[in-house]
């Protein structure tokens, strides 16, 4: 079956329908990872977005369900150059097309994903529609595509209730703004009791739980629209409980500290971004997935210092707050998909917790 991808600028591409047949409008982002498509599909930070995979051969090793980064697929749609006919891996449980259909995710194959990446690089983020319907007059759907906005996505992806997912001597509250499963895994691996709390949980409730540390997770959307959460984070700061922020969590912390965020032209989405630790000069390769960054000029040097910087475009990748047990990073130390170079940051977090005691 044919499928079409229509961009808000009126460009249209024909391909083959994969996954669900329904029509979807979303923001388009491209991801340059060469493996880890399942982790990307199930990363809640992609809520509201369809992902264009620049690597042309997707689905090669099928779907290994244990690699899912959350309980369902949050990506709106999948755009690939070629979807493998078979999934070949000893752990494979189904092929990717079947998985997309099961999760009702539409997609398109057979399109020039490199070209799409270039369009986004040149024009900046834009919206698009994946559909199996052939519109004779594209103009009629363009207003609908243009009007789409990624809004209030955190509330869509966060957990419904507070729940404890492991046991341990010490407790960490994991603020779920759309947390990837591996964040919790890293804490569990280190012997912590992890209590997942929904994004809307008031700070005082978390403080009352007498937790030893707080992790502000990754998540989708524009951080500046999360005003209520930012307000609660201000309370958390005052509590003196060690906090580690990842991605959206890093941005929300910065906003709570009075800094500003801005939107990148087309964001960072991939598994090959070099980040430099400005304290010791070491460079690590990291997984990244964000459209927003902290505005460098808005950082008050008396409050925080830049911890990590992106080697490619010198954007802020991590902050350490003076006199506060708070560290945050823009990239993903939990990896999955992507390099495991910065896993040690979880050790730094737990060290912060230990030192406070």
């Amino acid at each position, binding site marked *: 079956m044919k499928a079409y991808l229509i961009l808000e600028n009126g460009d249209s591409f024909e391909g083959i329908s994969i996954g669900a047949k329904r029509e979807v409008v979303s923001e388009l982002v491209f991801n340059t990872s*060469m*493996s*880890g498509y399942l982790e990307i599909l199930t990363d809640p930070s992609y809520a509201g977005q369809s992902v264009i995979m*620049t*690597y*042309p051969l997707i689905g090669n090793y099928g779907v290994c369900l244990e690699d899912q980064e959350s309980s369902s697929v949050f990506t709106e749609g999948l755009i690939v150059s070629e979807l493998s006919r078979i999934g070949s891996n000893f752990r494979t449980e189904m092929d990717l097309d079947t998985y997309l259909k099961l999760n009702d995710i539409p997609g398109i194959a057979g399109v020039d994903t490199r070209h799409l990446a270039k369009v986004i690089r040149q024009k900046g983020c834009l919206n698009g529609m994946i559909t199996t319907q052939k519109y004779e007059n594209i103009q009629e759907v363009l207003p609908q595509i243009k009007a789409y906005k990624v809004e209030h996505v955190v509330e869509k992806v966060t957990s419904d209730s507070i729940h404890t997912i492991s046991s341990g001597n010490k407790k960490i509250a994991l603020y779920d703004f759309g947390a990837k499963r591996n964040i919790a895994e890293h804490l569990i691996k280190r012997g912590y009791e992890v209590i997942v709390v929904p994004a809307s949980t008031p700070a005082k409730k978390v403080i009352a739980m007498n937790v030893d540390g707080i992790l502000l997770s990754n998540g989708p959307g524009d951080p500046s629209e999360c005003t209520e959460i930012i307000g609660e984070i201000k309370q958390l700061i005052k509590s003196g409980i060690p906090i580690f922020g990842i991605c959206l969590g890093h941005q929300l912390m910065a906003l709570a500290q009075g800094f500003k965020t801005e939107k990148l032209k087309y964001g960072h989405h991939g598994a*090959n*971004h070099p980040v430099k630790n400005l304290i010791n000069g*070491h460079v690590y390769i990291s997984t990244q997935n964000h459209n927003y960054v902290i505005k460098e000029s808005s950082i008050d040097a008396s409050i925080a210092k830049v911890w990590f910087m992106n080697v490619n475009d010198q954007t802020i990748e991590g902050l350490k707050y003076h006199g506060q047990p708070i560290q945050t990073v823009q990239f993903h130390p939990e990896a999955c998909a992507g*390099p495991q170079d910065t896993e040690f940051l979880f050790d730094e977090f737990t060290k912060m917790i230990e030192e406070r005691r």
Partner: protein
Amino acid sequence: MPKDTRIKKVLVIGSGPIIIGQAAEFDYAGTQACKALKEEGIEVILINSNPATIMTDKFIADKVYIEPLTIEVIKDLIIKEKPDSILPTLGGQNALNLAMSLADEGFLEEQHVRTIGTSTQTIKLAEDRLEFKKLMENIQEPCAQSKIVTNVEAAIDFANEIGYPVVVRPAYTLGGTGGGIAHDSMALHDICGNGLRLSRVGQCLIERCISGWKEIEYEVMRDGSGNCITVCNMENLDPVGVHTGDSIVVAPSQTLSDKEYQMLRTSALKIITALDIQGGCNVQYALNPSSFEYCVIEVNPRVSRSSALASKATGYPIAKLAAKIALGYCLDEIINQITGQTYASYEPALDYIVCKIPKWPFDKFADASRDLGTQMKATGEVMSISNNFEGALMKAIRSLEQNLDYLYLDELTTIKDDELKNKLNEVSDLRLFVIAESLRRQISIDDIHAITKIDRWFLDKIAHLIEVEERLKRGPLDLELLKTAKHMQFLDEVIAKLSGQSCQTIQHLKQQYGICAAYKMVDTCAAEFEASTPYFYSVYNRVNEVSSISHKKKILVLGSGPIRIGQGIEFDYCSVHCVWALKKAGYETIVVNNNPETVSTDFDIADRLYFEPLTKEDVRNIVELEKPEGAIVQFGGQTAIKLVHALEEMGVRILGTTADAIDAAEDRERFDALLEECGIQRPQGHTVYTVEEALAAARQLGYPVLIRPSYVLGGAGMEIALNDQDIEKYIKIINHQYQEHPILIDQYLSGKEVEVDAICDEKGILIPGIMEHIERAGVHSGDSISVYPPQSIDAAVQEKIIDYTQRLSKAMHVIGLINIQFILYAQEVYVIEVNPRSSRTIPYISKVTDLPVVDIATNVIMGKSIEAQGYTYGLYPTKKTVAVKMPVFSFEKIKGAEISLGPEMKSTGEVLGISTEFDEAIYKAFLGTGLELPKHKNMICTIQDASKEEFLPIAKQFYSFGYHLYATQGTYEFLRQHGLLVSLVNRISAEENTIYDLILEDKIDLIINIPSRNNTARDGFLIRRFAVESGVSTFTSLDTAKALITSMEKHHVKKLNLIDITKLD
């Protein structure tokens, strides 16, 4: 960390001659590294015995020594030049071993020479099996169960403990020389015994056999402050068991989930950190296909064939960065040349798939075993880039230039199903075709997987190709099918053949449907950042992103494809110089080539690089996009020459010598007419079609005769026939291979061979130098020792050669280069071959005469006469320097290959010896080929009757030099009769005191074996094979043996005088 300012003068060791396992990749790496060092203001001293390389050009380094790569020579060089540092990790295993020996002896320390880049301690740790294993245990990285042994008994004990099969890997050898898989104790006895002999340190590793696991490689970089990245990973289509150099390899890995990918990536970074690598490094893994279990197979703490492939596959210049890291820079301080805005501390993101297929020399060694195992056999490789695996595979297959354009091998179609299934068990170069044929016959993917262990993903892709084949056969050829076939890179010709249509119809359909090739850029970042690298590959049904607009005139330069016997690195040297000359003259250059190992495919050589197969259609697509002013085909060997007619059909002007003139040299009748017109003789000959005609012709000419197919150059398929039986046998073989063309039979003249290269313009010629061969005619010129200037040719004959060259070039209207081979026989000069193109000798003659031959020729081709370039016509003034080019062979790697020399070329590379006097030059050349004699002063001689007389004085020379001679019966009696005290040794079929026994005692320096030409007995062949596989030098020509003893007599005790070729007199 900024640059280390203590480093001012660096010695770079090259890798020496091209041999199997060590090819052009080190010229690419070395050239890049030297350029990177010079860029930083470092004085670079280079030593490499291989004259055919770009890296030994005088402007690549400050001082260039084309000298033998021996410990003594390098010591002398260090004393002479006093470098403060040595960079050993860019010249392959050879350079690494040399540097290690110097370090071990304490010589480097004594001379205050520092090793920069990865340290000698690290190298030792990575290369010594035992130490490496210990380290891996310490950092908890798994290795396959293994044990280091120093004798065969220990090997057998260990194998009994872990069970067969086991892998044998000798320590410190190239390309797995001497290794193998042993399935029982007898095999282990042989393989291990041999491996111990070949190992530099007498060690072999006996290892649990993990064949069938996935073989995965990571190319990693690390700088002095501990930053590490992986450049890319690669997956071998062939599971563990086939040497990675002989495997079909794709990048990035295709069948690894992110969990597996990251597990191995993390392991690789952990290993290079533990080893404290500073530079580039390759880590090889075996990954269990049904669990997360893995083993580290090997670490190469240097740039390698894989790193060259990774550089070309990603656009990340590993060797250049390794050099910068050696100077102290950190990865995040070095700009990514491709984007110009990001840094080297990132990991390339590919948005395409790369496929490499090795080029094997089995066409040259018809009798050799085609089995692939742990011993590498390929001489070169091709790489292709596409956005789908099927397309990449199809491109790579046709890049190999073996007249196969898709997965179809005629000879497999006639064999029975069960036989075919049996063939799936054979791991050989044909396996891919056997799989394809099996799929055509409905043998299931599961069955094929069960036998071959090749991942189902790859098999499914091959099955997809077969399905499309079937659909093309069945029809109808609609838009969708044609699009699919082109997407998967079926050539128009193949589509035409399968669908039963004409090629024109296919082209017409393509036009009608608007299907045409689009080009994409290799940019290291999957389009994330803007890049302007002019490095492209073709795809179908996608948006073209290459703008052909240029304000300069564009010239197309066709490369020479994979390195193979008969067409080696020399042609890449010529292509690169042609590009440089064109650029200098203000032209925009477009290079098309598919060899990932070479300098010409470095993205900063040409203005535009198309990494594509060199077929008519692939080139036409580029021509249609770029519309070049003209094309230069003279420098890309036969690969480029083959495309001349196609280019003319496309309307591309052939610059320089025309297609018609090229034809004139290849068409026997036209060539004869030309010679007659010029009043030049050639050995008498006839053109025949049948056995009867051939026999009649041979008898008329008188045996011996030279017999060969027409339209095949470089001695391919050429034989010397001594009698009727030879002719009959030969015609049978040849008719099988080259049916359409007639067969040529020539008189065989056993005279002296002389070779000339000349640059020709409309007015005259410039000859850089005349070269004389040591071996008499009958040995292919590429396998002969070549001497410049000639030592035994008088002035009158030289004049005649110059005159003939002039006449021929003029008559043929050659513009550019010509190469002519002559025979001097009974005071007469005969022409035996004319090639109106660049030749194998161009790089070396350019270097020793200090004449930029390719540059001058390129300018001539572009219309600037020799005179206008400031040169005079005629023979260029002869230098005082004597240069001897000597062939180097890789026989020990190719089991079953006949090593005796003849008209078919067999050498893989060459070395040069340079001196002010002939004997020293030739001695150096012998040293350069690895012949370090005398050692034990024992030799074996077995000489055919016809050559015994001639051998006598040579035998006497060896004898008086102190050699003890062992000879087989006939030779023994002959030498005894002539008063030489020699010992008898039995032929191998005897019970005791055989040649085998002598060789096994490891006391033999060399074997002189002159086989009778019609020797059908296996005896001689077995002796030669056994000698070669045991590492004993074997000469099959008396001329070579004589040259050796004469030079040895004079020079083996003298200090060699080292010559910097940038300052030749």
